[in-house]
């Protein structure tokens, strides 16, 4: 009995100790720490983390989430911010956070080395977010499926309206995915709002599924679940590199693009580290890491070598994307509800 009691006491003690170690949230040294929310692929996030740690000795705690999730979290945490820097992920949520004052304005000495589109976005966001890479919108098609169904090679946005492609095109729902919202904004900027919505209504007849996640059509195209998938081109390239029977197309009418961005969280506890990371992440050396991690976006630093697999921005007709207008929450809300009412609820 005594033994049993001692044992019970020992167990309780051990339990308390574990609980106590558990309650404290990872004691990180105050000097040289950085909490980073990362919104690109895990590999790339890790490569950035380790390279930065090696370079500066600053300990990075990195958490990977999608860009929308990070936005929701940063917003919920705004009373008592947990993160210092939000690196990567499509630009819309960054712009939204900038608009709501959740992020900090900062002018990096590296700004002069950046491409125009990155600087323009930084300007439009009142210096609160900066472009680190960009990826053009496009589509990919499954060559096996196209051959089996005798579908000619689609080259333009207009080709996606062809009758042979009935129920063969897949794209995400713009309500849930920034990718699909970029498509909506792109089509409107190319064709004008009225013509653009006519196009989307016609495209609706060929859509087999509005997926939830923006990159899902790339995988579906690779598997042959759909013939054409509309995504960012680098998502399709990843499938091609993985040897899927997929061909990536840059639409002939021109196309929009996303700017993967970086923001410093307002009220960051490690502001100095965050700024150090910010400057470092804009260098060519840091941006090179993307290609090594099999991410084929176009980097924003002019002197970063562009990965050979990446879709060349020079071969793509890029439109002059108005991020300030189409990134604002009012315009977005208006367009999304218009799309909901006029396109999504149409009969097939």
């Amino acid at each position: 009995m005594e033994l049993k009691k001692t044992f019970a006491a020992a167990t309780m003690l051990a339990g308390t100790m574990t609980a106590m170690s558990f309650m404290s949230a990872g004691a990180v040294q105050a000097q040289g720490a950085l909490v980073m929310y990362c919104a690109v692929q895990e590999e790339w996030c890790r490569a950035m983390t380790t390279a930065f740690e090696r370079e500066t000795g600053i300990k990075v705690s990195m958490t990977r989430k999608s860009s929308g999730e990070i936005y929701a979290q940063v917003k919920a945490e705004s009373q008592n911010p947990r993160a210092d820097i939000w690196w990567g992920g499509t630009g819309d949520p960054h712009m939204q956070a900038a608009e709501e004052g959740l992020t900090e304005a900062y002018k990096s000495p590296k700004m002069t080395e950046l491409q125009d589109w990155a600087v323009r976005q930084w300007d439009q966001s009142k210096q609160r977010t900066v472009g680190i890479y960009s990826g053009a919108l496009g589509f990919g098609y499954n060559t096996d499926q196209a051959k089996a169904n005798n579908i000619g090679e689609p080259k333009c946005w207009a080709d996606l309206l062809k009758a042979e492609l009935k129920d063969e095109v897949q794209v995400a729902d713009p309500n849930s995915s920034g990718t699909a919202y970029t498509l909506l904004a792109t089509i409107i900027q190319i064709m004008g709002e009225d013509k653009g919505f006519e196009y989307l209504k016609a495209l609706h007849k060929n859509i087999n599924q509005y997926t939830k996640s923006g990159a899902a059509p790339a995988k579906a195209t690779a598997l042959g679940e759909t013939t054409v998938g509309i995504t960012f081109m680098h998502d399709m390239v990843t499938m091609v590199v993985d040897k899927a029977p997929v061909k990536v197309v840059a639409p002939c009418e021109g196309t929009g693009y996303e700017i993967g961005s970086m923001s410093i969280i307002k009220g960051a506890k490690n502001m100095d580290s965050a700024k150090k990371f910010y400057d470092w992440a804009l260098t060519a050396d840091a941006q090179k890491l993307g290609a090594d991690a099999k991410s084929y976006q176009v980097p924003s630093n002019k002197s970063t070598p562009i990965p050979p697999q990446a879709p060349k921005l020079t071969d793509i007709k890029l439109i002059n994307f108005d991020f300030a207008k189409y990134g604002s929450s009012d315009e977005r809300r208006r367009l999304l509800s218009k799309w909901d009412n006029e396109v999504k609820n149409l009969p097939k």
Partner: protein
Amino acid sequence: MSRATLGWIVLSWVGFVLLPWYGFERSASPNLADYFVSGSALIHGIRGAWWLLPILVPLGMALVPVVRPSIQQKGTWLVASGLLGLALIVVQGFSIGLNGWTFDALRSLFGEPGPSQAGMGYGAALTAAAFLIILCHGLAARGWCRGDAFVTSSIGIVVALILVFVFFPVSTILASAFADNSGNFAPSAFVAKFMDKSIWGLDCLTSDLRCGVAWNTLFLGLLVAFGTTALGLAFALIATRTEFRYKKLLRVMSVLPIITPPFVIGLALILLFGRSGALSNLLWEWFGVPRSRWIYGLPGVFIAQLLAFTPIAFLVLIGVVQGISPTLEEASQTLRAKSWTTFWTVTLPLMRPGLANAFLLGFVESLADFGNPLVLAGNYEVLSTKIFFAVVGAQQDQGRAAVLSIILLAFTLGAFWMQHAWLGKKVYTTVTGKGDSGIPLPLPRRVAMASYLTAIPWAIFTLAVYAIIVVGAFVRSMGRDYTPTFEHFLTAFRVERADWGLYFSGSAWNSFFATVKVAALSAPLTAAIGLLTAYLLTRQRFSGQRAFEFGTLLSFAIPGTVVGVSYILAFNVPPIEITGTGFILVMCFVFRNMPVGVRSGIATLSQIDKSLDEASLTLGARSATTMRRVVLPLLRPAIVASLVYSFVRAMTAVSAVIFLVTAEYNMATTYIVGRVEAGEFGLAIAYSTALILVMLLAIVAIQLMVGERRLGRRSASAAPSPIAVQAVP
């Protein structure tokens, strides 16, 4: 005064005088002195945190019955002390925040910014807990619950936990349903969002347009609830009432899906039945069945959810089917009832609590499920994904998410109420103190055939799905390139031998260890709180019981995304500042999964005759002893069910934890979701396979540790001694 009461009074002082009142800064590395005395509330109070000093009053009040044993109203003193103490802690905690006063009224009254304080630490937690227990002991002393301090304390603890970890966070987010985009109170915005056509539209009845998302969800939920209950019953009947040869195998098959990480079932279904899926290809080549995308939409989600949730129904039902006393069935047969009549009029009605609880769980699970609709729903929209993307999608409309959550909650509430109405006030007790000498009735042939015909094809189907998963882990790219490879496992679980020992360099180890740790901690807690709650609900009578029961269901019914965001909103700022810790993950899991413990506990307990407890009480045992010696051993199937379920859920839940993970406590599922997003299905499946293995081991371990319930029942094979009934594989 009992020694326990005295102990808690001492602890309340310890928390105030000795332990650090505030939590430590994340970056701080506290030394021993910080842990004791110097960071205590008393020292803080003397050094300027004047708002802590009033707490000394209730602390002193608790001492009154100790120093003056002759005093008459001991209970009243304790109650007053506990109430005042809790009130003071709550009021000071909520009115003084990190950046000064938290209420505008206080700010304008006393000027800005006012005093500030950090989140509560061990001391505050201990003192608050002690006040709660003192209050409960006081209530018992005043005669509540027949003066049983164990019962009042249990009720107090569970209620307090539910208030803190369910009501408090959930109310913070549901409030946003009534706010407009800039956060002002706007009931009209609620009405507009609530009446939206995309929620309640009925166009699908009259045209080929889509119906509202609420109807879709409801319809799917009902289908899945019926399906899982029927399948679960078939499995449970085969497992307990037949001599089927491959019973054990069948059981493993039936429980496999529960231990499958999200997305994997959906993925496997696509690889089997998708337009380019393996089976679709065979059907096309052999029979010329045209390939189509039928799997995307209602059929796909329905099949995936059936696969995923049948095990829950099975786990709830098997305990109930076992518990049915053969005596009643024998009586029925002696009265010349045919076996079919007996089954229909005796056995089946006795299973009602099990059926009702299984149905409720299936319905609620389907409503809250997020992974399967995400992969398979196609254009069939359901509330859970809609809510997720209202929060994180391009709309970024938290108010809309809250409105949709309220609808989801209303459905759950409705199901809960209907379940009660159906069960009524009938008695389902079949496990009594009297020895049962009966032999369980073999199933009537019709029922046996029906069970076999549903369960066996289903088991084979499950097998096929799992074959796909296992194959997927070992080939380069499932569905395209079947070159065998270990590459995925190496990426995830590489172990290198360094000079100083083993180095776990694989990219998954980090999240793997954290996940196992969190799951192992939350499982016993979930089971304990869940079963305690079930015990209180079935065995005790107190006012507010229905509300209490509903409260336990609340966090389960609310979609994970909403719970995740609400946990950040509630627990990122003082007084309870626990985001970023492993503790918040454990708490989140405990309160999300507790309802399964409660449900299976209630289902099993309602079969056990109260006279067993009463006999024990009459013989002088206290409630706690009765619970430990009589009730718990009879509850073993429910214990296994809730332990297994909560362990597994902690390893496989996605949506709630997405917002709660940190670099240190990263969870396996968020890793998997990231991989799925990046299209690396091979890696995701390989990781899932590893998780499945761990969970299988855990289930076996739980089974061995909890042991089997021994009821004095003979099996039909005429074993001489009462044989043990195995609960779950």
